[in-house]
Structures are given as C-alpha cells and as structure tokens.
C-alpha cells in the first residue's frame, strides 16, 4: 500500500481522470432523483482478507481506501452526505489484536486528516464522529475532537463516521437526555415526542439517510441507524466491501430511484400523522391545565392552542440547546486536554 492511495481526499492526480462513460452514467442518474444522504454498512473486509490470504489488518486498510474512493463517487453524483458504520460497540468483543489494530488504523487516519487540512478546507468537508466516544482510548478521543472541531463549519460534503456506535445505545442516550431534561424542569413529560427524541440522537445535525447500502450479502441492520432508516430505501448487495465498485453505487442509486416514490409517500404520511399527534397532545395538555384551574379561559380554543404550542416550542428549543452545549463542552474539554497534554506537534 503506497502512501498516496491512503489519503482522505482524492485529487485529480491521485485518482486519475474520470472516464467519459462514468460521466454519461452520472448524467443519466442525475436526471432522476438522487439521494442527498446515503448510509453504508461496510461489511466484508475480513472475508476479503481471508479470500485473498492476507491478514485482517490489511483487509481493513483496503476497506478504508475503498471508503475514500466511494466518497468521491458519491460527491460526483451529488450525494453530499455519507454516514458509515466503522466500528460497533459490539466489535469491542473481537480479539484484542484486531481491536488494537482497528484503533491504530483510526489513530493513523484521523491524524492524517489533520495533515490534509488545506485540502479538506478547500473541498469544504465536514467530519463528524458519532457514537459513545468516551469508550475510545483517550488519545483517539482527542484526535477525533480536533478533527470535528476543525471541520465543523464546512458544509459542502459531510462524512459521519459511526465509531463505537450502536443504534440502541444512541436511542437510549436520547431517552436519558429527555429524562434528565424533565428532571431538570427544562421540558415537561408531555413535551416528549418523536421529533424531540430525534433531535437528541447523535445524528441530530443530519437529515435521515434516504438510502442504506449494506455490502457482503448480509440482510440485517446490525444495530445501525435503526430509528433513522425506518423510512429509507434499503439495498443489500452481495459484494464484499473492498470489491465495491462505482457500478455497485450506480446500481444502488437506480434501486433508490425505483423505490423512492412509495417510500416517500409513506414517510410523508408518517410525518403528517406525527403532526396530528402533536396537536392532540397539545390539546390534552391544555385541557389538563384548564382542569387544574377548574375553568376554561375566555379566549377561543384555537388561539389558546397556538399559544400553548409556542410555549412548548420555546421549552423544547431551550432543552435542545442545553443538550447540544453539553456535547460541545465535552469536545472542548478534550481539546483543552490535548493542548495542555503535549506540546503541539508540528503539523504542516
């Protein structure tokens, strides 16, 4: 593996010129609906390594290169956000050697990210690491914090890396977050809704992915974005991740185009239903409030309802700000630790 192929950002020189038939395919696909956000379960690195009789670490390294390649393909197609499942909390159960190897790979790649700073800024790439990052070794946490902080203002392309992540842990964290919010009196129990929980997930800054691709032929979600992909198009591909090619991506997008209309219809209906439920819950809350006072106020119900909804929104927004600032604080703490800990290594 030569160094040049392992970079995060592929420039014209490192990846060669795009061939004309790829351009034509892109044009054709782009005349239909293209997802904005695609999630990948990059499965099959180890099986690939075994098949080609190399060691596992090598398989993971090739898997990483495939990721950077795929990111470029996605951008060319107009897919501006990608979420990948890099490491599950369950993966800590693997052999110590393999876990250490994966952590070392992460350490290298995130450090590399800092070295490619200029290129990343130029392309406007934003990196986010989603998951229970306090499970990671401290030095990796610090590099992750640095990478996220450095790129947080970029918007042209977004890469979410799920690391030490499981969807159940994420949903549970959201539930704990709202429970604490109620305990602290920031929100009321009746304010808890799908949308509030959703905004407490690690993915709170992203729209839900419209397409989920899982390679290696497995047909399950394995605790990845369970909440977020409830109304996404799923594509299970029988190819091992290192063998994933641009044609597989094209096939995935065609698959999405075939199904997106009916999925969108279901999603829209679900959103409408959620709105209706919100209205219902506001009304119930208003009624119980009036019941406490033993009298209905004079103003018409509609305007009372509007007023109540406004109050609720204020409460919820204040609560969500609190959640976000708590997470930011953790990142800032890591950053200051890093600055204090070692004399800043010369990154040029």
């Amino acid at each position, binding site marked *: 593996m030569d160094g040049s192929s392992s970079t995060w950002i592929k420039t014209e020189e490192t990846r060669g010129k795009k061939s004309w038939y790829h351009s034509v395919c892109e044009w054709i696909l782009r*005349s239909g609906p293209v997802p904005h956000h695609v999630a990948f379960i990059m499965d099959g690195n180890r099986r690939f390594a075994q098949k080609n009789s190399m060691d596992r670490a090598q398989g993971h390294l090739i898997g990483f290169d495939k990721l950077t390649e795929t990111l470029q393909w996605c951008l060319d197609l107009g897919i501006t956000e990608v979420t990948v499942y890099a490491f599950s909390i369950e993966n800590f*159960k693997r052999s110590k050697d393999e876990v250490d190897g994966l952590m070392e790979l992460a350490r290298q790649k995130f450090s590399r990210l800092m070295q490619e700073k200029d290129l990343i800024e130029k392309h406007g790439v934003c990196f986010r690491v989603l998951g229970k990052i306090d499970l990671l070794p401290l030095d990796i946490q610090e590099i992750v914090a640095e990478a996220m902080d450095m790129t947080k203002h970029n918007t042209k392309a977004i890469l979410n890396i799920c690391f030490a992540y499981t969807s159940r842990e994420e949903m549970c964290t959201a539930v704990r977050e709202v*429970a604490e919010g109620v*305990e602290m009196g920031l929100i009321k*129990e009746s304010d808890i809704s*799908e949308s509030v929980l959703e905004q407490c997930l690690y993915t709170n800054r992203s729209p839900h992915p419209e397409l989920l691709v899982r390679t290696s032929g497995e047909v399950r979600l394995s605790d990845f974005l369970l909440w977020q992909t*409830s109304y996404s198009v799923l594509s299970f591909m029988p190819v091992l991740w290192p063998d994933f090619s641009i044609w597989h991506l094209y096939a995935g997008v065609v698959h999405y185009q075939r*199904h997106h209309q009916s999925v969108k219809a*279901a999603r829209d209906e679900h959103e409408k239903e959620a709105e209706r439920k919100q209205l219902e819950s506001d009304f119930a809350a208003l009624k119980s409030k009036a019941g406490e006072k033993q009298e209905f106020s004079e103003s018409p119900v509609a305007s009372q309802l509007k007023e109540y909804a406004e109050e609720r929104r204020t409460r919820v927004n204040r609560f969500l700000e609190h959640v976000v600032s708590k997470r930011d604080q953790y990142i800032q703490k890591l950053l200051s630790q890093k600055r204090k800990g070692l004399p800043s290594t010369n990154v040029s």
Partner: protein
Amino acid sequence: MLSTVSPAGVILRFIHAFIYANQLILNYAYYVFKFLTVPLDKTPRLCQDAKTGRSDPSIRKLPLHVGILIAEDEVSLSDVARIVVWCFASGISHISIYDRKGFCKLHEEALKSHMSNHLRKMYQSSSNKAVVEVHIQKNGLSSNLNNGHSSQNSLEVRLFSADDGRGSIVQAAKSIATAVAQHRVSAEHVIPQYLDSILQEKVGLPDPDLLLKFGEVQCLMGCLPWQIRLSEIISHATHHNLDYKSFYSLIQQFNNTKQRFGR
C-alpha cells in the same frame, strides 16, 4: 447542470425514463410468469409439508420469532392468515404481524376466523385432531394465556402497526422521564438493557430473528426500530397468493444465514 432544458437534458431524461420503464416491464413480466405458474390446488401439498415440516432434516435452524411485515398497500387477510398458519405448523412459536396502517388490527376478528379456517382445513386430513385455539393480541398487552407463546393447541399472534414503532419508544421515554423526575429511577440507570426491559414488557416477545417482508418496496416502513436490530430481513415480492413452496424457500433462506454478533 440539467436544470435548464437543453437538448442534451431531454435526451438524458429520455434514457433515464427508458431504463426505468425497462425495469417495470421486467417486473410485470415476472408477475405474469409467477401467476401462471402458481399451482391451483395448494391445500393437499401444504398438509403434507406442514406435518413433516418440523422434522425436515434440511431445516436445522428455525426462527424463534418471525415477524411478518406487509409492505404492500393491499392486505389480503386470508393470505396473511395462511402464512401465519404455515409458520405455526412448521413449529415457530412466536409470530407477529406488522402493517404500517394497522389494517390487520382493524380487522382482527376477520383475521382470526381466516386463521381458524386454515387450521381446520389443514388438520382435517391429518391424524392430529387436536383443536387449535387462536388468540390475537393488539397493542402489545401481555397475555395472561401463554405469555405470547404458541403451544401445540393454541396459536398466538401479535399485531403491530406504525404506532408501535418509534411511538413505543416515545411512550417508554415518557414513563422513564416521569420515573426519573420523581427520583424513582436515577438517570444513570437508563442504559440499553433497562430500556429494552421496559419495551419488552410491552411487546412481551423475544426480538424477531426473522422478518419476512412482503412487497416490492425495499423499506421497513417504520417497523419496530428497537426490536429489529438483528433480524434477518428476507423479502418476497408479495404475500398475495403466496404458495407453500415460496414460503418454504424463505424459511430455507433463513436457515442458510449466519449471525456473528459483532465478532
């Protein structure tokens, strides 16, 4: 690039439409083919297989809990009931049905009588004359009968709809929040195992290890996000007129899958 209507854009749109149409045509051709090859007389063979299904040596792994996910606009209660009965006959002890709009919940009684009918037909020709009782539960309330466990002479089915998906997590969050606010539970106590136990109380079943998804569309349609974490999702184009052979091949597909649980 294609926002302005240029001749090139029109041509590309045309090519795109062509590819799209091709897929549709192929799909319909497949349907017609399927329709023509569906055997007319299904019942006799089903009985044969249903009786021997359990001892079939090629099936080594049966799902413990199968979720039937209907991702089609039209639900055929009779066909759903038949699939349930096949599952039951092959020895699967937990069965649940999910349809987004709650059609099955709405027609619970009709579904029940369809199931009884299919059961009667199946056991008529078999030596086993035991009467099988059918129980259906909605809204995931725990049963006092068999704790959702079908036994030899009782068939239990749970019905779910979109409300039981994210909605049940919201409900759980509300009750947990109340408990935390009243200091009955501390916030640190809220870990996935705890939330799982709260949700488990409502559903009362182990997580489905097999999700049989019926419908062309490749989407879970809001189906129980918490519970389907490790479910094998095996799809079939439609549940309408599903024949036993197709059902059997779905079970066989499950039989061939491997779980690694992150290792």
